[in-house]
């Protein structure tokens, strides 16, 4: 079996300032030149071009047919408006000491609903939903959402609907103790919120919402998430509150609507 001799230095003189070569990539092994000389795989096959063009056309048609007057809400797979009362009660438990869940108004609710519903990256999950009916216009106006009826803390929860709160505690979560750790760290109220990493994946509030939505988490559920590690790997640990209680997920930082994957969960938190 022939093996390529270790090749000479790359064909480009770094002194000539070729943008493809960087002095810091000086490569005594010659492997860089070998790899760059392997050749081009050729153009995208025509059948794949046609296939992707057809997919793009379908996406464009769906986008063109979208009625901008309707705000599609992922959560409407269940008759959801009356659930806000239950959500508010569940959220009240989370609201203790978590500043970001307090002191928000109807505008934040609208922003949250609009963001989670208009994000077309979540279409992958919504494609399997029943057709969404538009709610009565009045129900979208501020002030009509249910207020907490059973909350013991008095915290206002209207602003918490669908909200994703990011914290960065640096906790090393483990598979053995995920639910307990999430309860102790994220539900204790000791963590301060952060603005997130600013990416378009799970490190960012919007990206995390897309990720969770793609995994079937309703968009109206409040989430508190921690930029941390899980079994030694960078991850996002998210506690989701619903009318049935709290559950915890661990997702990779690259999780998003198209690449939705859980490292662990959903696990119930007791």
């Amino acid at each position, binding site marked *: *079996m*022939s*093996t*390529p001799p*270790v090749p000479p230095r790359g064909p480009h003189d770094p002194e000539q300032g070729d*943008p*493809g070569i*960087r002095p*810091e*990539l000086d*490569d005594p*092994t*010659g*492997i*860089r030149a*070998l*790899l*760059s000389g*392997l*050749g*081009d*795989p*050729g*153009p*995208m*096959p025509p059948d*794949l*071009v046609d*296939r*992707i*063009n057809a*997919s*793009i056309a379908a*996406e*464009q048609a769906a*986008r*063109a047919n979208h009625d901008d007057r309707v705000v599609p809400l992922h959560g409407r797979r269940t008759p959801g408006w009356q659930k806000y009362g239950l959500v508010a009660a569940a959220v009240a438990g989370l609201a203790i000491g978590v500043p970001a869940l307090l002191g928000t108004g109807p505008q934040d609710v609208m922003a949250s609903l609009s963001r989670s519903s208009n*994000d*077309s*990256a979540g*279409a992958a999950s919504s494609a399997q939903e029943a057709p969404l009916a538009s709610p009565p216009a009045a129900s979208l106006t501020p002030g009509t959402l249910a207020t907490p009826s059973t909350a013991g803390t008095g915290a206002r929860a209207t602003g918490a609907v669908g909200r994703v709160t990011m914290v960065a505690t640096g906790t090393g979560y483990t598979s053995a103790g995920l639910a307990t750790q999430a309860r102790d760290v994220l539900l204790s109220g000791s963590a301060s919120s952060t603005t997130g990493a*600013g*990416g*378009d*994946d799970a490190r960012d509030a*919007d*990206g995390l919402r897309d990720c969770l939505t793609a995994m079937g988490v309703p968009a109206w559920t409040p989430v508190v998430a921690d930029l941390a590690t899980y079994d030694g790997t960078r991850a996002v640990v998210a506690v989701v509150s619903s009318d049935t209680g709290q559950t915890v997920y661990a997702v990779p*930082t*690259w999780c*998003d*609507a*198209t*690449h939705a*994957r859980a490292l662990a969960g959903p696990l119930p938190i007791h």
Partner: protein
Amino acid sequence: MTSRPLQERDDRELLRLHVEGDPDAFGELFRRHRDRMWAVALRTTGHRELAADCVQDAFISAFRRAGSYRGDAAVTTWLHRIVVNACLDRLRRDRPTTPLPEREPADGRDQHASAETRLDVREALDRLPEGQRLALVLVDMHGLSVAEAAIVLEVAEGTVKSRCSRGREALAAMLRERSGQP
């Protein structure tokens, strides 16, 4: 004011037009970058069918998420990242249960003895840890700068450099071992 044809618009303009509702802007982006992204997917996965699915996923994802592009990196860097993530997701989630066919030749048009060489190199590349392999695919095979590769892989530039360095050393050692060289 006459509007310039899409072919004359730069990538950022096309993406902006797409977000604003232009029905043809994304198609132009696809036409412009499809071959390169196909190559990235193929070199990342080494499996033709998998690469096809990945690159399709990636372009649809880019179509849907164009509004999230923040403009701090080049559009091609953003596309590279989406493609690489699509490939990694598939590789981790859908590990083939049947053996993969012989690796795709890097250049199907070159039928000479160097095909054997390419196979050696590709097999050795496959044996590298994922991080090192991806760094070499992006930097050495696709010519991305270290800074661009760092954005695509979501790691620090120093990490890309060290992965490239260690990956090249490991590849060189494997190739020497195959040839019986000391």
